[in-house]
């Protein structure tokens, strides 16, 4: 590793930091201390099922992030009788929602919704579903009131209060620092919802269960099939409606918040015949290489900065106004360009005097770090690896494709009756600004909770097709103990070496994308069929790899099609947005020959 020398660092110190002194009163640093240890909670017991057991429900919810949990609470309030909540990890905790800071965009009285809508669509490159966005903004007040009713308080920051403006956009108003029964941040919101669901008593939990197939016949949902990663038992859900409240696709685990996002919801919907949209927008972020800490660019306003291997504070070349405190995309593009110039690796330098001795202390003591982030920071300090100790190596993280499962304004599939999409897998836009993911999770969860309940009430009883169920059951364990098989870990490295390169992610050219497609085709034909799992734990990972491969192909194909640059999609030959030809969505749908068929859709 190329460490920056002490002398170089001293040279770099000072100037940028002093200009941006913190507005917080310094005495806070001494007053608050570390956040109190988290309360331990009762475990929601997962339903123990036998192999091939049939579970009848009115509604199956796949995924327990903000969207899935809101859907469960809302559906129970709409007096649905039986809900199955399924998650491939732990309930609530395996989603990003439990790990985020919990800042959420709300639109309350006095907010200019029309101006906000315009600004928001401009930010996300002009592509977005306006009706859905309006619906999210107009119903926002209702969800805020519900949080208050359920006992969540938004404590805010000392100076900025509970509504903070971010991203240099005065219409983005975040409510920050949620608290609930001793929990803080996103974990507080998740815990509140889990408590609600437990109190309502109509939900059955299936943790560590991965849904591997939807049971769809004649354009309607009849249920789903899943497999337990601990016992290997398979379960058949018989239900008229399914909500896919899954995350996005990050092409391989690399970060605690997004490690589980392997495009499972996209793949389920796509294989069942649903359209996928916005597959070319792969949103990037920057994290520390060795540990889980993101948002480093935010400390740019307090004197921290990204430096390349020569010690140069390069971000000013790419964003003269904001430097290191730029937005996700600009930083990621800058990283890729520095890499192309041979200036990688890149470090985040928080050792400047102002940052190290004033701001970081205040952050540690008074900022609303949730339990794991606070513990993480403390542990980094204990082990001599605090971000302020030395410049830390930074890498690009794919935060994931955003917005893929195409639905109508009721968030129900146009192709498959009874299939709903919420959370990050909901297609309504493709941007990431701070607080939008939790806002869209809450909105889409609540909305699907209502619309799916209404649908399930009026729907005919689901009928299971015996052959289809048997096929799905066989498919769910098809990777088990193949002869001469390769393990997940052997294959995922190869897969990631195709996807995780700057030319594929952030410096796309037709050559690089075509090359990527060729390599992926080889991988799909030669390597993937040899994938073998020695137990049920690896079986689920094998399914994840299969899903990622499917989504990766659509990502490369649509990136190749879109001959312009827009938002997180950047083609080096076409550096500008082309609104004349490309203000439209690319949709992918599976056809009868099992091939991806492309169509365009104009935004309303």
């Amino acid at each position, binding site marked *: *590793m*190329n460490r920056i020398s002490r002398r170089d660092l001293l040279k770099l110190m000072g100037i940028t930091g002093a200009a941006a002194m913190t507005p917080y009163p310094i005495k806070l640093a001494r007053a608050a201390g570390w956040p109190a*240890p*988290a309360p*331990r*909670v009762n*475990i929601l017991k*997962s339903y123990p099922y036998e192999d091939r057991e049939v579970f009848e429900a009115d509604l199956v919810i796949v995924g327990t992030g903000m969207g899935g949990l809101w859907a469960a609470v809302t559906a129970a309030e709409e007096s649905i009788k039986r809900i199955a909540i399924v998650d491939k*990890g*732990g309930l609530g*905790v*395996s989603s990003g929602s439990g*790990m985020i800071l919990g800042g959420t965009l709300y639109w309350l009285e006095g907010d200019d919704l029309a101006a906000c809508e315009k600004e928001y669509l401009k930010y996300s490159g002009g592509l977005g579903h306006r009706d859905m966005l309006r619906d999210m903004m107009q119903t926002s007040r209702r969800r805020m009131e519900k949080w208050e009713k359920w006992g969540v308080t938004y404590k805010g920051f000392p100076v900025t209060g509970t509504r903070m403006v971010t991203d240099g956009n005065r219409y983005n108003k975040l409510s920050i620092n949620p608290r609930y029964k001793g929990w803080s941040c996103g974990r507080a919101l998740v815990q509140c919802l889990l408590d609600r669901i437990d109190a309502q008593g109509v939900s059955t939990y299936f*943790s*560590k269960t991965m849904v591997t197939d939807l049971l769809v016949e004649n354009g309607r949902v009849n249920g789903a099939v899943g497999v337990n*990663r*601990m016992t290997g038992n398979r379960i058949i859900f018989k239900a008229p409606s399914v909500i896919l409240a899954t995350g996005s696709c990050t092409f*391989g*685990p*690399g*970060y*605690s918040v997004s*490690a*589980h996002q392997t495009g499972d919801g996209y793949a389920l919907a796509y294989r069942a015949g649903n359209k996928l949209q916005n597959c070319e927008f792969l949103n990037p972020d920057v994290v520390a*290489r*060795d*540990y*889980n800490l993101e948002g480093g660019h935010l400390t740019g306003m307090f004197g921290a900065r990204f430096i390349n291997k020569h010690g140069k504070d390069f971000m000013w070349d790419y964003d003269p106004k904001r430097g290191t405190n730029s937005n996700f995309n600009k930083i990621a593009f800058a*990283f*890729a360009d*520095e*890499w192309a110039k041979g200036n*990688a*690796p*890149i470090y985040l330098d928080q050792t400047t005097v102002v940052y190290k001795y004033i701001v970081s202390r205040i952050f540690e003591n008074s900022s609303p770090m949730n*339990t*794991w982030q606070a*513990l*993480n920071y403390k*542990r*980094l300090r204990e*082990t001599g*690896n605090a971000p302020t100790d030395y410049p830390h*190596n930074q*890498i*690009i*993280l794919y935060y994931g494709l955003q917005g893929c499962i195409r639905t109508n304004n009721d968030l129900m599939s146009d192709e498959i009756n009874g299939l709903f999409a919420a959370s990050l897998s909901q297609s309504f836009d493709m941007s990431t600004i701070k607080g939008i993911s939790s806002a869209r999770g809450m909105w889409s969860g609540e909305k699907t909770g209502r619309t799916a309940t209404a649908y399930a009430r009026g729907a005919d009883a689901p009928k299971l097709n015996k052959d289809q169920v048997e096929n799905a059951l066989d498919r769910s364990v098809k990777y088990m103990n193949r002869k001469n098989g390769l393990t997940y*870990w052997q294959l*995922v*490295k190869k897969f*990631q070496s195709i996807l*995780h*390169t*700057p030319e594929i992610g952030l410096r796309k050219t037709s050559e690089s994308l075509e090359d990527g497609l060729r390599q992926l085709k080889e991988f799909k034909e030669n390597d993937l069929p040899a994938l073998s799992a020695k137990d049920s*734990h690896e079986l*689920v990972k094998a399914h994840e790899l299969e899903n990622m491969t499917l989504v990766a192909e659509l990502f490369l194909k649509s990136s190749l099609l879109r001959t312009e640059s827009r938002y997180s999609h950047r083609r080096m030959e076409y550096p500008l947005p082309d609104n004349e030809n490309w203000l439209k969505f690319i949709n992918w749908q599976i056809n009868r020959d099992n091939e991806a068929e492309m169509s365009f859709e104009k935004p309303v």
Partner: protein
Amino acid sequence: MTIRKFDQNKCTGCGACVEYCTRDVWRMDPKTGKAYVAYKQDCQACYTCEINCPESAIWVHPFRYAPRMWPCNMEYEDTV
């Protein structure tokens, strides 16, 4: 590995770590009735087990196993 210390003597076999682990790293040993780390390479250092362990038997190191992504000067670290 990221789960650096685990005190089996403190473990009461309550199963909190197993139920809560987001990546299915922990398993229960039916013979001893205690938890053990079954799939260490999947750990993402999210601290969920440490936070939820009622006996404080777990200590997690912040450095995770990660696919070595760009732009950095390292190849994949062979963790498995």
